[in-house]
């Protein structure tokens, strides 16, 4: 059993990297989702076009291709990134594009009368978004954001292919050193599942919190 404790430490170190990637990637994805999602609803054509291009581009190619592109091609353009930076950038931009559609859908789902009421009350565009539209749109976004966060977690496995020592990479190391395949892979599958479960638990809690303040507002 003591032989395994060393390998277990290795795998747990990998779990930490995966966690780091998931958290940082999600943060970037969240920012991009709101930027691009609200950008698509902008009244300026240029902003709309930019946001649409970003969304279509990142949704049209897979995370794997984007990651390789960021990691191998950007250095030729003079931008060298560490594997972790490349991973966070690719994951964040990719999932952000999916999130942007969620933001757009949720904002559009808030009734027109809300916008009209804001205009009647002479609120500025910013005030309208910040105090009226977004607080109502947010609860609509959360369930899908939860799925997106889990997709991002699953996407992190791909970074092992650009030599970042995440869970999947460490499992391969253990496999190479021990020749045992079942135990390392079963362990990391379980760990990934535990993390996905943790994400959905946190998101459900968040959803309850966000909807609580809206009691009586929504029918």
């Amino acid at each position: 059993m003591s032989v395994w404790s060393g390998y277990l430490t290795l795998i747990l170190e990998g779990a930490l990297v995966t966690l780091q990637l998931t958290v940082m990637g999600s943060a970037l994805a969240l920012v991009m989702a709101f930027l691009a999602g609200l950008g698509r609803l902008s009244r300026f054509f240029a902003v709309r076009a930019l946001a649409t291009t970003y969304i279509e581009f990142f949704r049209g190619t897979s995370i794997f291709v984007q990651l390789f592109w960021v990691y191998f091609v950007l250095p030729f353009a003079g931008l060298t990134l560490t594997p972790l930076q490349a991973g966070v950038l690719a994951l964040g931009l990719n999932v952000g594009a999916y999130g942007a559609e969620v933001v757009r859908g949720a904002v559009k789902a808030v009734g027109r009368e809300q916008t009209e009421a804001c205009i009647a009350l002479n609120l500025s565009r910013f005030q309208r978004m910040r105090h009226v539209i977004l607080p109502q749109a947010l609860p609509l976004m959360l369930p899908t954001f939860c799925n997106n966060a889990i997709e991002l977690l699953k996407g992190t496995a791909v970074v092992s292919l650009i030599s970042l020592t995440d869970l999947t990479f460490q499992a391969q190391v253990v496999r190479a050193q021990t020749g045992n395949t079942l135990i390392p892979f079963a362990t990391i599958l379980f760990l990934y599942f535990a993390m996905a479960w943790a994400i959905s638990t946190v998101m459900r809690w968040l959803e309850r919190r966000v909807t609580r303040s809206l009691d009586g507002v929504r029918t």
Partner: protein
Amino acid sequence: MEWDWDFVWQIMPTLLEGFKITLLATVLGAAVAAVIGLGLAIVRRSPITAVSRTVGFVSEFIRGTPLLVQLYFIFYVLPDIGIRLSPLVAGVIGIGVHYATYTAEVYRAGIENVPRGQWEAAKAANLTTRQAWIHVILPQAVPPMIPALANYFIAMFKETPLLSAITVLELMNQAKSIANSNYRYIEPMTLVGVFFLVVSLISVLGLRWLEERYARMDD
């Protein structure tokens, strides 16, 4: 490093070779996902709670863990228990089963959308359960699902580069080997991106058409 068109034309045949495998994997994977997904959806409705719970948990587990790790699992662990699969077969099974858990949800929603009266009418007309499924429920449930299913098949197409990790010689793997042997990353990686982007954009148009064609079936 500059973009070199001569190099592009030189590597194009190899990339097209890989692209064929990518398409093949997508089509076979889609077939597997369509069939197994339907099976999962039907079994999940089983009146025996133990069966439906188990299937539900297994689907959750598959959906909560990365496809890459599942592919490694199929490719490296199964040979230990005597099931030796070629890379492409392992890849098709992996990607097909993974997406089956998603398509199962689509089928489930579609089946639940068939009004209860149809079941009752089938029973009143003395059809067996099998006949009710084949002649009454599925013909009504399937057409509205087609756009959602197609959406997952497009997602699946974008995930096929992962098969390169288990040595399937698809587009991404061909591009990687070209890049490694010539030490030129810009052209092959960018071309892979372009290939995927073009196919995705075309399939988005196809999807719109499908939505228009089949969405009316709802009414």
